[in-house]
């Protein structure tokens, strides 16, 4: 690897000039920012800029997910790349007046790094971004996702043009093999190998499919790429189509992603108009036709044989392999399926060379991986790091540590197919093999962080409920086995666990893993097995102690107001939706447990921390303490 070229670290992005050389304010329109109100901020910028008479000089543009979602809604003044997080309408007015008109950065509106308290103006200098290496996400949050010229201005479609007009399919496959990239959808099969199989399959008709059925709850990398940089996916597919010899392709997009569908449709039309897609593209003899297929809401359709059944208009039920799709796939023809993120990496690999990509990552897992960081973190969002970065680097480096200064308990990786890695293994490198050794998986990139208030038994129950609900019903172990596991977990979290439940779960899990037809069933027990492995004491506390140590399972907790801390302000009584709290003003209030629905409102609104959740023996201890005559 000594002669590998230097790889641009952190990938400092160039400035995208607005049309006509205007200055530009970029407002993030990623999903989380939209939930935080970014579209209102967009309108506010337009109005304020017009009011300031700057409409001819400053353009307001939307961008795809900028990454640091927990700071949304956010905007970037391009050029100097000044970053304004957590915007409110009154901030917009000041930014326009003081920064755009007055030429002074609005200091007190800048990002504040938690811990150091330092104010940071340029987003490249914020640790969350500075610690990333963005390849698949290189243009996401940088370019206007609906303008092909901005993608082209940053080198877009150059790789596809080179490949289609100058290279052989064999060269492309060798390059992708040499890069070492493995499928980013979760299973991690080497992409180049997969392409080679499809290339070697002889047929008059082959298909290339992009799997955009990102169904893991808590994962939004693929959505961010599809709606933030749709051309990267299309360009990757053009290169793939040429490599394997497929003249027709589909992008299968999850039903819940209407924005991705509309952006991809627009991008396909733009690419066709410029001759980058369709018949005789780039003036060559190569033709590739790409269509969108909208899913209809079924998690199992992320499995490749189920996905193909769904494209064919049938129930999305997996079948056994072989035959593999490379031999007999869509409508019985050789088919190659890759994930969104995999395709988005391909143009970069072709442009910068396989060696540049292979220089990143670990021996067995080359390159970078995008993650959606969520849960009890200070800085949640979209992050891409070299494979082999540790969980600690993700949680405390990129993620900025745990919210509200609480304790890091575990990280859930890989969603319903993955598992929980406990705090004790915080220095585990995030690569396919190291994670498999912990019982978790790399998965598609969902990373949800749990703190001491997250109940691991409840989390396992949550995932089982999901997989049970999404089981297609074709094979017995998955259809009935996950149901039985879920019933046991529901009993345990309801305080009705029995001696032997843990062993029953383990036995069922083993059978389901060994005998299920597809990956969904084979991995469904993982969240349960990993939580039993690392948090068995929590299962035992539920079953034998009638207690939920995290104080999350409502059947096992009871609410109580601490008379020492209660000031009698009456806020909890006012906010209680069922009138369970009573008391005289300025005196200790009490909760009528027969009426209380455990909605947690009183505890959340109390400014003095007086409302406590008791569990297990604490409940009885309190009752006996309260018993003495008044």
């Amino acid at each position, binding site marked *: 690897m000594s002669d590998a070229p230097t790889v641009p670290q952190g990938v400092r992005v160039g400035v995208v000039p607005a049309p006509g050389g205007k200055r530009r304010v970029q407002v993030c329109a990623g999903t989380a920012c939209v939930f935080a109100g970014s579209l209102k901020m967009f309108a506010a910028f337009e109005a304020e800029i017009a009011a300031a008479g700057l409409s001819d000089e400053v353009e307001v543009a939307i961008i795809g997910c900028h990454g640091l979602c927990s700071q949304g809604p956010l905007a970037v003044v391009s050029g100097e790349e000044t970053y304004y997080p957590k915007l409110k309408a009154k901030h917009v007015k000041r930014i326009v007046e003081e920064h755009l008109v007055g030429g002074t950065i609005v200091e007190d509106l800048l990002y504040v790094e938690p811990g150091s308290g330092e104010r940071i103006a340029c987003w490249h200098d914020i640790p969350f971004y500075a610690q990333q290496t963005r390849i698949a996400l290189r243009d996401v949050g940088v370019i206007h996702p609906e303008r092909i010229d901005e993608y082209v201005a940053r080198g877009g479609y150059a790789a596809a043009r080179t490949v289609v007009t100058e290279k052989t399919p064999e060269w492309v496959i060798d390059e992708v093999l040499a890069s070492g990239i493995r499928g980013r959808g979760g299973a991690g099969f080497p992409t180049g190998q997969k392409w080679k199989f499809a290339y070697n399959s002889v047929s008059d008709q082959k298909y290339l499919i992009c799997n955009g059925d990102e169904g893991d709850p808590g994962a939004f990398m693929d959505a961010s790429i599809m709606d933030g940089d749709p051309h990267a996916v299309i360009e990757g597919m053009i290169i793939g189509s040429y490599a394997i010899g497929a003249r027709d392709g589909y992008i299968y997009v999850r039903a819940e992603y209407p924005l991705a569908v509309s952006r991809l449709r627009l991008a396909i039309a733009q690419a066709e108009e410029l001759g980058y897609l369709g018949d005789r593209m780039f003036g060559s003899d190569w033709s590739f036709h790409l269509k969108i297929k*909208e899913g209809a809401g079924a998690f199992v359709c992320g499995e490749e044989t189920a996905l193909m059944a769904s494209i064919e208009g049938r129930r999305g039920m997996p079948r056994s392999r072989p035959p593999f799709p490379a031999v007999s796939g869509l409508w019985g023809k050789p088919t190659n399926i890759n994930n969104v993120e995999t395709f988005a990496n391909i143009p970069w690999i072709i442009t910068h060379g396989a060696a540049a990509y292979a220089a990143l990552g670990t021996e067995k897992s080359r390159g970078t991986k995008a993650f959606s960081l969520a849960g009890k973190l200070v800085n949640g969002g979209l992050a891409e790091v070299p494979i082999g970065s540790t969980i600690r680097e993700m949680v405390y480096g990129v993620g900025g540590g745990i919210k509200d200064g609480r304790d890091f308990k575990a990280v859930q990786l890989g969603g319903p197919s993955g598992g929980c890695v406990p705090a004790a293994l915080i220095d585990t490198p995030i690569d396919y093999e190291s994670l498999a050794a912990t019982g978790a998986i790399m998965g598609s990139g969902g990373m949800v962080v749990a703190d001491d208030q997250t109940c691991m038994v409840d989390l396992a129950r949550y995932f089982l409920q999901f997989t049970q609900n999404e089981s297609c019903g074709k094979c017995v172990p998955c259809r009935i086995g996950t149901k039985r596991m879920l019933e046991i977990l529901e009993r345990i979290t309801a305080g009705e666990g029995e001696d032997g439940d843990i062993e029953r779960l383990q036995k069922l899990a083993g059978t389901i893993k060994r005998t299920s037809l597809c990956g969904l069933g084979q991995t469904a027990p993982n969240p349960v097995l990993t939580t039993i492995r690392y948090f068995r004491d929590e299962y035992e506390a539920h079953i034998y102690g009638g207690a939920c140590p995290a104080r999350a399972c409502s059947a096992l907790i009871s609410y109580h107001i601490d008379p020492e801390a209660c000031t009698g302000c009456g806020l909890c009584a006012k906010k209680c939706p069922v009138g369970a709290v009573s008391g005289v003003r300025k005196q200790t209030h009490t909760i009528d447990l027969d009426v209380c629905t455990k909605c*947690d409102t009183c505890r959340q609104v109390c400014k003095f921390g007086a409302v406590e959740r008791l569990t297990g023996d604490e409940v009885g201890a309190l009752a006996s303490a309260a018993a003495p005559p008044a």
Partner: protein
Amino acid sequence: MPRRETESQAHTGTAVPALDLTEVGRVVDEIDPHGNLIAVLQHVQAHYGYLPEPVINEIARLSGVPASRIYGIVTFYAQFSTEPSGRHKVFVCHGTACHVAGAPRITEAIEQELGVPDGGTTPDMSFTLDSVACMGACSQAPVMRIDADTFGNLTPDSTRKYMLGVLDELGLSADDLAGGAQAPEGAAEAAPEAAASRASDTSEGRRP
């Protein structure tokens, strides 16, 4: 001030007055159900708001695809529904991050305010409450959507406030939702329509 219902909102609701099946014919003419049954169902549902039995039977009659196969697809995919839903929809996200941040408490709060269980529709057909697997707004968890309006960083308390705010804007009370008093905002006309379409489901729709 009460906001006006747009035509598209009305379409996503229950309004299938006499089950005019001409749209089914139009879609089947345009998209071949043999290779694209899911797309056919998506278009038809976009028009009727749901897929009642007469509609499924009409697709089968026109295309020759067995109704049993169509029904199998309708019940397989979460996007399709054989029941009409309310004119307004509340979606509470139950992705992992939202679950960990307390999404079950958010659903409970809405259940209390609307008086319907998760997945249910208010008797006046104005609101349907549903859970979704993940909206991808994990950093604002827990989140919900009421029609096109999005709400993040929810607590049970703020959820109730937002829900009541929306009901207030529409001029609806708890009594209206329960189908009791005369409801404003078109609810009064819509309810009998829904009842009519349900009746047609069971009587005409089940004819051999």
